[in-house]
């Protein structure tokens, strides 16, 4: 269970213009401004939920995750994770959570991952039998076998990320904060990590809060999404419902073997993209059956696909609308 109520986190940031003179001036006189990284955010996540935490760069996602995992003290507001106050960083709390940051490593750089695992076993006080069983399970699922004895610095990014995940899960946490866990990974590895996180969530009834710039991660893993922008919560709810509410039209893609006139195409739907004889149309949901009938019948279309609008487009529109107009 994760609960945040009116959470705010402010940072004091030193600002100075570029240039040598400004650098010298800043030695004696510094201008600071307060940045509201998180500004009055409230939400509750039940045990076992998988929630996507979305927002543009600088929206406050990572700051929120750091507050929830106890790395940062909130400026105001209340936070509870697994019935603990994260900022107190009690051993009981740290034993129940984990934070995976795609851009930060917890593995000891010059030693093989097995040494980090041994250290984590000791500091999290994991019984040897449980450690052996968990490591065996993670080794099978993530195919870690050949990587365990290789110095971390010699692992590829994908290999390191798999080892990071294992290090983060050896103590069997029940709350997972995943910050860009698939960043920089190839598609096959992204899919493997997604499958693994879903399987871990189901087997251990673990709560997952995920941030990712790859919308495929979010769509594949998270039935619910929380969207923040400029530190404020702008949506909290079901992912499919959000898509349906924001843009109920479907994307219909197909390939034609015969020529088609612009007028005939416009009658089917609004053209979004064309690549040779491959078309993508925007079609109102209620008209989809009729359009499919036309495409499969007289037009003899091939490779037909009907999809929801991409989450990226919806979010782009949301962030655009939410932001105030820039002054002229």
């Amino acid at each position, binding site marked *: 269970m994760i609960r945040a109520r009116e959470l705010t986190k402010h940072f004091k940031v030193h600002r100075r213009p570029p240039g040598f003179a400004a650098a010298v001036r800043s030695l004696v006189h510094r201008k600071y401004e307060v940045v509201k990284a998180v500004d009055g955010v409230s939400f509750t996540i039940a045990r076992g939920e998988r929630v996507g935490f979305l927002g543009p760069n600088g929206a406050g996602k990572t700051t929120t995750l750091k507050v929830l995992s106890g790395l940062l003290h909130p400026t105001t507001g209340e936070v509870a994770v697994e019935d603990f106050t994260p900022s107190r960083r009690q*051993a009981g709390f740290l034993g129940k959570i984990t934070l995976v940051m795609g851009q930060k490593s917890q593995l000891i750089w010059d030693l093989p991952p097995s040494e980090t695992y041994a250290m984590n076993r000791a500091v*999290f006080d994991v019984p040897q039998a449980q450690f052996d069983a968990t490591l065996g399970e993670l080794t099978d699922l993530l195919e870690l076998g050949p990587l365990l004895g290789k110095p971390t610095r010699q692992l590829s990014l994908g290999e390191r990320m798999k080892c990071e995940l294992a290090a983060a899960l050896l103590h069997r946490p029940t709350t997972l904060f995943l910050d860009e866990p698939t960043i920089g990974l190839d598609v096959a590895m992204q899919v493997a990590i997604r499958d693994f996180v879903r399987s871990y969530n189901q087997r251990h009834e673990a709560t997952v809060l995920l941030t990712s710039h790859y919308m495929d991660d979010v769509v594949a893993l998270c039935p619910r999404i929380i969207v923040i922008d400029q530190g404020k919560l702008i949506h909290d709810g079901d992912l499919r419902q959000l898509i349906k509410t924001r843009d109920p039209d479907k994307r219909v893609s197909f390939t034609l073997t015969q020529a088609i006139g612009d007028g005939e195409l416009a009658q089917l739907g609004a053209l979004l993209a064309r690549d040779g004889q491959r078309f993508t149309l925007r079609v109102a949901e209620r008209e989809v059956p009729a359009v499919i009938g036309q495409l499969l019948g007289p037009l003899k279309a091939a490779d037909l696909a009907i999809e929801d609008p991409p989450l990226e487009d919806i979010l782009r529109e949301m962030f655009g609308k939410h932001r105030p107009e820039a002054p002229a």
Partner: protein
Amino acid sequence: MIARTVRALPTLLRIGVAETVAYRAEFLVWILTMTLPLIMMGLWTRVAEVAPFQGYSPRDFVAYYLATLIIRQLTGNWVAWQMSEEVRSGAMAMRLLRPIHPFVAYAASHAAAIPFRSVIALPLAIVLLASSGASGLTSDPLQLALVVPSLALAWLSTFACLFAIGALAFFLTQTMAIANLYFALFSLFSGYLLPLPLLGPIAGIAAWLPFRFMLSAPVELLTRPQDHHHLAVLLGGQLAWTAILMTIALSVWRAGVRRFEAVGG
């Protein structure tokens, strides 16, 4: 928490040894940077060749500086630099997610390096005995017995002081300048550059500053005959400064962690 920490210590020490071995080239260079006492020994033995200098004969200087070198090798550490870098880069975040106090985790990692420093220090101890003979070292069994706890307190107080400087990185981001200032004061007031009695008018001040108890105290126990009053002052001073420096270190840490901005990512 304490029981968990005690159970974790053997593994932390083992990992610390593995890390020390992994960074062996850097480690050897770091050991070599601590050989300043050898230079000072050459200088002062030349000065004392003509006549003893303020009571120190060449043999006394040899014994003093070799003892200083050994104690420094066994008590020096680089935790302030390590912490500063980890705070600046945001790597400290990962350390904060482990249920063990970072003071213990860093201490175990640095303590693990001690046996490797002994590889250098112990042969030097043999050279010391052979070159300066019994006259340069104490033969009092009580003093020799007290060298071990004195060495442990010197290590802990040095570690606590550098941990406090490292924790200042939470406030200042970069603490290299402070660490350099510390090292300048340490070199002067700890007896690293020259025996404290040779400091002249500031010897009285140096006698009560923490630096003496980080280095000079065990060296004094090894090289100069001490009456019981002086033994009590040395060990009592070490205990008091260790307690004070640990309190400061943990207080700075507690206050600093509240300000941690976990930069990056």
